[in-house]
């Protein structure tokens, strides 16, 4: 899915460069929502996110000549969006810039044989639509609560499905930092889901 999206986005960028009819509106439609969603999750304010979307697109169109490879359009757009977000940074809405430790997410093990790990049985819950909607809400809430450096990574890698290299380029960090932060972000989100699953089972919700 991500690969075909990337191809469509590259094709859209080529159409835009060629001045094909309809390319402008399609590009705005596709990228405005994506930028808004990222900015909303990063800035925490709807107004800021709409401004980021508009100002990013304005910069994108003004500087489109600088995009050398249409295949790289998405990381290029997100790098501009990321800088726009940084300019509107309001400290108060961000979670503290703390480091997440791997050990915080290690399942607790029984001292004797280590086999009794506290992992809720996710497979016991049905994968139906109502549950999926609830789980998506939990994922969103968990991402919103992540410290900024982890939030940015999981939004780019797992929501926007940029590659490790592309996310590193957007955020100007090393590949290793992308991998480490992404893993911790996923573990934090997984833990919130796990708490919900454990509660749902214990409560005999389903």
């Amino acid at each position, binding site marked *: *899915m*991500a690969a075909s999206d990337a191809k469509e986005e590259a094709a859209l960028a080529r159409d*835009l*460069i060629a*001045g094909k009819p309809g390319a*402008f509106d399609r590009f*705005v439609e596709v990228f*405005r*929502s*994506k930028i*808004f*969603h990222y900015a*909303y*999750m990063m800035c925490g304010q*709807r107004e800021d*996110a*709409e401004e980021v*979307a*508009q100002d990013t*697109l*304005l910069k994108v*169109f*003004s500087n*489109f*000549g600088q995009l050398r490879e249409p295949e790289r359009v998405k990381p290029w757009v997100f790098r501009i969006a990321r800088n726009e977000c940084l300019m509107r940074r309001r400290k108060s809405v961000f979670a503290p810039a703390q480091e997440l430790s*791997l050990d915080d997410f*290690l*399942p607790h*093990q029984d001292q004797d*044989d*280590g*086999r009794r*790990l506290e*992992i*809720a*049985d*996710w*497979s016991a819950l049905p994968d139906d639509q109502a549950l*999926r909607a609830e*789980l*998506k809400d939990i*994922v*969103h809430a968990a*991402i919103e609560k992540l410290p900024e450096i982890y939030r940015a990574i*999981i939004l780019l890698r*797992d*929501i*926007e*499905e940029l590659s*490790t290299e592309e996310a590193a380029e957007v955020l100007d960090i090393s590949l290793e930092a992308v*991998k480490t932060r*992404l*893993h911790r972000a*996923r*573990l934090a*989100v*997984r833990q919130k*889901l*796990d708490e919900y699953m454990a509660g749902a089972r214990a409560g005999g919700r389903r």
Partner: protein
Amino acid sequence: MEAGKHDKAKCRDVFALLSEYLDRELTPETCAEIEAHLAGCPPCIDFLNSLKRTVRLCHTCEEGAKPRPLTAEQRDKLMSAYRAFLAAGRGA
């Protein structure tokens, strides 16, 4: 590492690499080592599956809050910038 034996230290090592394992970013040798551990460690398999489902759920979260519709004024500004880009291209 011996398959089938639960080894807490090994669990921790594997735990640290599970995202890279899911993203296929590890060498074949490291993957084989992880798989050998998983074969004998059901809790690590459960954990891996829950992490996999977490990532899958994230992939479906792209559809979230939506911006208000683009106003005519906003569109005009963007269109002007786009037209300037096209004109510059033709002039080059």
